[in-house]
């Protein structure tokens, strides 16, 4: 067994546009996916995540670079010779076959004996909770059930890697949440490597062991959900995952784990986290999540605190979302609802004055692209 279940080494996929020019849908991508991992590729449409998945499946071949599955270079190997299986976005169930025939199809192609097919199809259907529906046709199933058939059909072949192309995209929100949990549980049970493509960051964060954030064919960052959210490596990731406030400035001084950054929009020097990359005189972008800024009436001790004017208050129950004018910058601040039920209106009102506290340990310095 090789070190990685799937590896993409310097992979490029070039397409010719209808206008005749060329575009790199996948642009020098390196990716190492470990055995048994739940790995997500996250990005907006056109970021190259689906093309990357299709290259692992064998529906597309890399223009340059190489895809390895379990250490073996795949070259131009067709899909039916790869040890991976795919769950398609549209499910792609065979409408002329029953649920049983759909799930059995892959095993029949492998010339598995009929007795074993029967047993394994039964197990696969039990795993996705579809026992008893063997004789139905796909059109007689709900969307969620069709999804499960697609899953069983791919899993029954016991692939080294299961590829999932936005499999939950067509389900409604409630079913989607259920299936997210179920998929995650299933993945732990079967221990197969899952490569999951999605544009839904919440989905990616809640299910994945690791996430590759992609944009314009490039990998922007690979890391655990916590790393991606708390320690984004660049402005794109900071901005794409969740929400963030970005403040541009110049590094004035470096004091071991801290940076002193002059931010023109705040007309002041602020203290920020140094991840070790920056030197005095460099331009940086400071990123701070809206939920990590605090709004107070009077600051007790003042590191990075600035007078703020409350511009808009949006009450959404668990959170209150405030837009505050801090010197010359506009910051988004989300505060957890800590208001006493006795006096629910005791929060800041529009146009009130307050102080915004930007805790230095939550102020992350990022390169200015």
């Amino acid at each position: 067994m090789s070190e990685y279940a799937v590896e993409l080494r310097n992979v490029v996929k070039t397409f010719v546009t209808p206008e005749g020019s060329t575009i790199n849908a996948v642009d020098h991508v390196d990716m190492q996916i470990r055995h048994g991992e739940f790995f997500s590729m996250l990005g907006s449409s056109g970021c190259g995540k689906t093309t990357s998945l299709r290259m692992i499946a064998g529906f597309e071949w890399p223009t340059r670079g190489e895809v390895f599955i379990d250490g073996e270079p795949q070259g131009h190997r067709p899909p039916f010779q790869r040890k991976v299986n795919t769950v398609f976005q549209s499910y792609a169930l065979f409408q002329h076959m029953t649920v049983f025939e759909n799930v059995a199809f892959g095993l029949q192609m492998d010339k598995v004996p009929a007795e074993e097919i029967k047993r394994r199809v039964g197990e696969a259907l039990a795993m996705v909770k579809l026992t008893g529906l063997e004789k139905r046709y796909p059109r007689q199933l709900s969307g969620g059930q069709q999804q499960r058939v697609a899953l069983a059909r791919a899993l029954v072949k016991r692939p080294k890697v299961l590829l999932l192309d936005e499999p939950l995209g067509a389900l409604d929100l409630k079913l989607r949440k259920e299936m997210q949990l179920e998929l995650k549980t299933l993945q732990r049970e079967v221990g197969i490597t899952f490569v999951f493509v999605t544009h839904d960051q919440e989905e990616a964060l809640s299910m994945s062991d690791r996430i590759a954030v992609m944009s314009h064919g490039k990998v922007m960052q690979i890391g655990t959900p916590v790393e991606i959210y708390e320690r984004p490596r660049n402005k794109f990731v900071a901005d794409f995952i969740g929400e963030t406030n970005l403040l541009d400035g110049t590094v004035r001084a470096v004091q071991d784990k801290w940076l002193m950054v002059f931010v023109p929009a705040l007309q002041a020097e602020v203290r920020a986290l140094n991840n070790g990359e920056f030197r005095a005189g460099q331009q940086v972008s400071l990123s701070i999540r809206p939920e990590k800024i605090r709004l107070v009436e009077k600051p007790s001790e003042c590191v990075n605190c600035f007078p703020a004017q409350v511009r808009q208050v949006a009450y959404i129950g668990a959170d209150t979302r405030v837009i505050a004018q801090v010197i010359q910058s506009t910051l988004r601040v989300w505060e957890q609802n800590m208001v006493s039920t006795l006096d629910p209106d005791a929060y800041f009102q529009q146009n009130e004055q307050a102080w915004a506290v930007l805790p230095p340990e939550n102020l992350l310095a990022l390169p200015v692209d």
Partner: protein
Amino acid sequence: MGRRAPDGGVIFTFTLDNYIRLLGLQPDCLNPLACFDPLYVSILWRSLTLAFNTTLIVILMAYPLAYFIARAPQKRRNTYLFLVLVPLWTNFVIRVYAWMMLLRTQGAINGVLGWLAGLFGMPFTPLEMLYTPGAVLVGMVYEFLPFMILPIYTSLEKIDPSLYEAAADLGANALKTFWRVTLPLSMPGVVAGTILVFIPVMGTFVVSDLLGGKQVILVGNLIQRQFLDARDPTFGSAASLVLMVLTLIVTVFYTRKFGFGKEIVVG
């Protein structure tokens, strides 16, 4: 359900004489074996086998063509479909005449063959192609090919391309994908095309008249002659009814067996 009057009119009485005649028997004959005349039964049989053969050949020719068109790039598909339809702009009969020009003893095909033979210094006797059962078959296949291509194309084009990918993903090579996925999903087109071809071929008389001469008489010709030449509309009607029933039986049997595609049957 009537009797022919001596002047070609109809005497309206109930009689099955015409049907008995069609079966090759005579109403007054007591010994069926002695007076059996296979003329009309053989005409019916010939029509049936010709329709069957035509449909089979048309399917075998139309399927690859339809497959080719359905798999062609979007831009070219319309051009190909246009080319399939162009012949239909010309009158049916004129197109059959065109085949006469091609198949005649002094026709285009013999001309080219003769020229080729001359080129290699071989002796050449023009082939007798016109007025043979083969000529009728060629004409039928030619006339009805578009009516098979179009429904097969439509059903092939409707197949979601991700199904091919799913089949490949599950381990099926191109041939297995075709047998297990493409062909079953395109069966509704084949069934529809078969009905569009088989039924008219059973009843047609123009093609057999012009390309078969007196050699190939089909039910269609028989009926036509009863009404126009023999002036026996009662016998013609009986033959028409038998043709209808025969066609109906074959069609019902066929659609029961293959369905209009399984999906509709189970739906």
